[in-house]
């Protein structure tokens, strides 16, 4: 079913929040990557083993969710879009 306006608005906000975090905390040099919603974060090295801990902490705090070991699978962290879907799923 098509998402209503409010849902789309909150989804955009979530994505933007995640993007801003990645730009300020995970990317040392933002000229390298054009950070679209679908850019592959793991393949491109934006998320690495040093950065993922701070990303998890940020998501938990900012979206008031608890991330468990079972959530730590590549599919959830592939792109800004999948992280955003994962966050809304956890917030339900």
């Amino acid at each position, binding site marked *: 079913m098509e998402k209503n306006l409010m849902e789309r608005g909150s989804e955009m906000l979530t994505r933007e929040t995640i993007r801003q975090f990645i730009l300020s905390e995970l990317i040392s040099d933002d000229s390298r990557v054009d950070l679209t919603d679908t850019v592959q974060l793991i393949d491109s090295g934006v998320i690495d*083993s040093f950065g993922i801990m701070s990303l998890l902490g940020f998501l938990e705090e900012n979206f008031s969710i608890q991330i468990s*070991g079972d959530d*730590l699978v590549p599919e959830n962290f592939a792109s800004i879009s999948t992280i955003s879907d994962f966050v809304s799923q956890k917030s339900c």
Partner: protein
Amino acid sequence: MAASFLLQTYLSEHVSRRPGKTAVTDGSRSLSYGELSIVSNRIAHCLKSIGVGRQDRVAICLQRSVQTLPSILGVLKADAIYVPLDYKAPVERWGHILKDARPKALICDSKTIPFAMEVMAMAALTVPIVSVSDLTMGQTERVREVITLDVIEDFDTGEPTYLNNANDIAYILYTSGSTGRPKGVMISHRNVKGYIDWAVSHFNITAEDNILGTAPFHFDMSTFDIYCALKSGATLSIADEMTLLFPANLVGFIERQQVTLWKGVASLLMYMSRGGVLKVGAMPTLRQVLFAGETLPTKYLIDWMTIYPEKTFYNAYGPTEATGVSTCYRVDRLPAGAHVRIPIGMPRHGTRTLLLADNQTEVLLGKVGEICIAGDGLAKGYLNDPEKTASAFVPSPLIRDGEKIYKTGDLGRLLPDGNLEYIGRKDRQLKFMGYRIEAGEIEQALLSLPWIKDSAVDLLESKLGPGILEIAAFWEAEGEVEVQMISAALKNLLPGYMLPKRFIRVEKMPRCDRGKIKLDALKKNYQGHEWKQHG
């Protein structure tokens, strides 16, 4: 002069005795000792053919893969010095390192070549690039120089003659340095030998071992992985980024590779514990675990030790400038609680430590001083920086004609049982009311309280007026915690002048990727807030 030892000669014995034994693998691609020898010889001859000579520098800029090992050895076999770079580092940092190191060649793969080109364009440098992208299994490898030379197919596979001696530099590692520019630490063949001789004997590493490599090659941590494996004829299993990112993958990798020994950065052990992948009976072959690089919060160590009482855990400490591990502590019993601090242990064989006060005399037993290190691991200094070298590597003030010591900038104290305890960084010294106070000491006192999860201490302007400073403690906790409880408990731990005047609760301590607390962000975020002040 004793027969000069060179790191690449670790290979020789294994190449003749067990050439088919796997030297390095990432789980899917592997190189045997025989292949490693042949491929590294080819790379050495290729480098020599483009003019790389004794003690020239060659930058290695590769993705995390099995290709790194033959490249490292190839550089050493060309009598040159390898400089491992992080291809994901900002262009500016790259540029600075290349300008400082002035490499004669860059070893890249297909993914890193575009980055290298970009950096060279920016820094106005032209350095020949040797691509090792097509290097597979030692037979079909094509090593070519992509900028100025044509494709070269067949390089000699024979071992070159070596011109180096043990005091020549083997590699240069750039340390990040919280302030200022990266500094290139120059490590000799002899520096590594002393360290690895100790490690192989101390951890009883044999050809039967399988060593897990999780450290990036531009970190000093990887010295242990590479050379312990090569000296003992063991297998090095390199976990790629996908494996490191997801704890369940890492456990799977450890089990499939039958890893026996792992020296990991503390945050990765913490991440695994937090990720809920530590299960009784998992990773059965893993016998020894060393954690290093930063302090592992004791509660995570307790997790590990409770689930795996059969494994042995070590806390390893050492700056890049003293090559690998300088002190090491075997955790011989389960810590009594999360408040217990794990010592960093005693100096390894070939290394000595001393604790110096600000007036350059040794501190009294039990008092906090700067950890200084002497011995066979001490680097030759920083490349192109005699000034910083002279201020960090100094003659020991305790002995006339004293040997060189390296001043770590870390603070520690000696425990009654002879073990050292790490306190924090020296540059976090607060000057308050005429006292010199180590922020780390107050933070440690806070952390020893059962309610506190994390803490940071700094000076903040007080409400009494501009320029009047007071000690502020930022703290993170779970649930209801009264500031009065914290303040009362601290009075039993710290002298009056060290007691924080302000206690500011934060939801989450802001930390950089590497774990360092972002004090500026902290102060900025909480400046306007209502202070939870304690009179």
